[in-house]
């Protein structure tokens, strides 16, 4: 596979194309499983790490400036190795250094970006969890599903679009407040 094929593959990820997700699993899972199993992990750990690798790839594929400076396989291995090393360190398990059986490239920057993204994700998730219903669905309908206010008013049983808008505004203020309270502490 050459680099431009791999670029196409990552573009497929950005579209959440399931056949591409499956293909990346099939072509790389065993390599990562070997890495984790050979370094005091279980097959469940391997599955977790692979999921996280997929998310790193997804985030990268959505960047406007994304490019792959090495083979996808090498990149996946390097990310997996770094993530697993971190996991071992945080669990303070006894370990020797994680041995590399494949080429590795430096992925520090990617991991940093990923960790920032992940903490943003968790903050938004917890804020969304706290605002409750109908706020959550209301905001999702407007900002994510991009529904029209008139439609939303009908779906949620508001008498008119203006009422729905006022409600949406109140919900948004609450969500922002919850989000930024956490976000500023990062």
């Amino acid at each position: 596979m050459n680099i431009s094929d791999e670029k196409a593959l990552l573009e497929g990820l950005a579209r959440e194309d399931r056949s591409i997700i499956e293909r990346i699993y099939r072509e790389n899972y065993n390599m990562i499983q070997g890495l984790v199993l050979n370094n005091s992990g279980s097959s469940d750990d391997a599955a977790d790490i692979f999921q996280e690798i997929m998310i790193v790839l997804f985030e990268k594929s959505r960047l406007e400036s994304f490019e792959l400076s090495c083979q996808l396989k090498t990149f996946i291995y390097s990310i997996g190795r770094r993530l697993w090393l971190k996991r071992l360190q945080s669990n303070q398990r006894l370990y020797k250094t994680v041995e590399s059986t494949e080429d590795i490239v430096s992925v520090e920057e990617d991991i940093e970006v990923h960790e920032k993204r992940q903490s943003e994700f968790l903050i938004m998730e917890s804020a969304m969890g706290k605002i409750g219903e109908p706020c959550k669905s209301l905001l999702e309908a407007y900002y994510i599903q991009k529904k029209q206010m008139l439609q939303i008013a009908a779906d949620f049983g508001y008498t008119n679009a203006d009422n729905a808008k006022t409600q949406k505004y109140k919900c948004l203020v609450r969500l922002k407040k919850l989000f930024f309270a956490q976000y500023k502490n990062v």
Partner: protein
Amino acid sequence: MEDSLLIDAVERFVKGEMSPEEKTYFEEIRKNNPELDQAVVEHIFFINELEKFNATRNFTHAVQETEAKLIQEGFIAKKFKGKAKVVHLWNRYKRTIGVAASIAGIVSLFIASLISAIHTDKNPNIVSLVGKLDNQEKKIDKQALETAELKSKVAQITAVSPVIPKTRVESNFRATGFLIDASNNFIVTNAHVVKEAKNKLIVENNKGEQFIAKAVYVNVLYDLAILKVTDNDFKKLSPFPYTIRKTNAELGEQFFMLGYPKQEIVYGEGYISAKNGYRMDTVFCQLSTSANVGNSGSPIINKKGEILGIINSMESNAEGVVFAIKSVNIYRAVEELKKLEGYEDIKITSSGSIKGLDRESQIRKVEDYVFMIKGN
């Protein structure tokens, strides 16, 4: 400018919905008003965060579904204990299990056998949780029945083509069961539940619709039964959103459950308090939760959407001590049923799609797959 109007203006600005004059005007004041500029920047940032959050959530979902598919296919191996060892333990404990079952020890969580269990039980500490419906309950059940009949009559009158009203079955017990094969309509529950159905066995969904079922597999040793819904009116459901765990639950693992201790679905929570059941029975595990008569057959599900076990009984003289059949036994039952003629195609069909969702959404997705088991 009032805040809600400000947000409104910012949104229209971002979406390009402003007229050229309005836009020029807006940009002008934005330039001279740092506060407004700040609001615009913040809002754009926030909406972007919201969209990223949603994209990652959807993607994670797609990844988990792919993973579930590959696990089912056997491409991804998840830890599973050596088969020989499991079988060995199984055989070895069979006798004890048999004894325990014959004492009918534990309070099984279904309403009907409750009374007989208490009277004949040599070990009255364990109670089955099948609900035998007392008079009051029967009344409620009958009312529900009448309402449903009325509804179907009304539907018949208003419908263009006549609908034949379905006669509802009057039941004298109630328990819980859940779907394990969406393409062939197989439901799993407890063996002691099925025993109560001397004449008729039905499953009822959370909308109160009843369907005729028959027990195709009953194993009293591990108190499991598989029912097949034979009713032609039963609409096939899409693959269920939970997965069934092949390994033992961890000590302390939290779970939630859904069941029918009353005529509507009831949610409960708890944790795994011991790895084995009553008298170290390895088929079961012990839970700390509150279960009630009618909960027999209820699935217990962890936060990842994995079914860990099936509630079957509780200790009657200790509060909150409940027992569940470990989920791996479902696989055993399915394998055994598969060997019987006519059931070769049974298959656990899971989409595994509730991992990572919040609890309310998980419940919403699971409840359609949890049924009342009734009959007489």
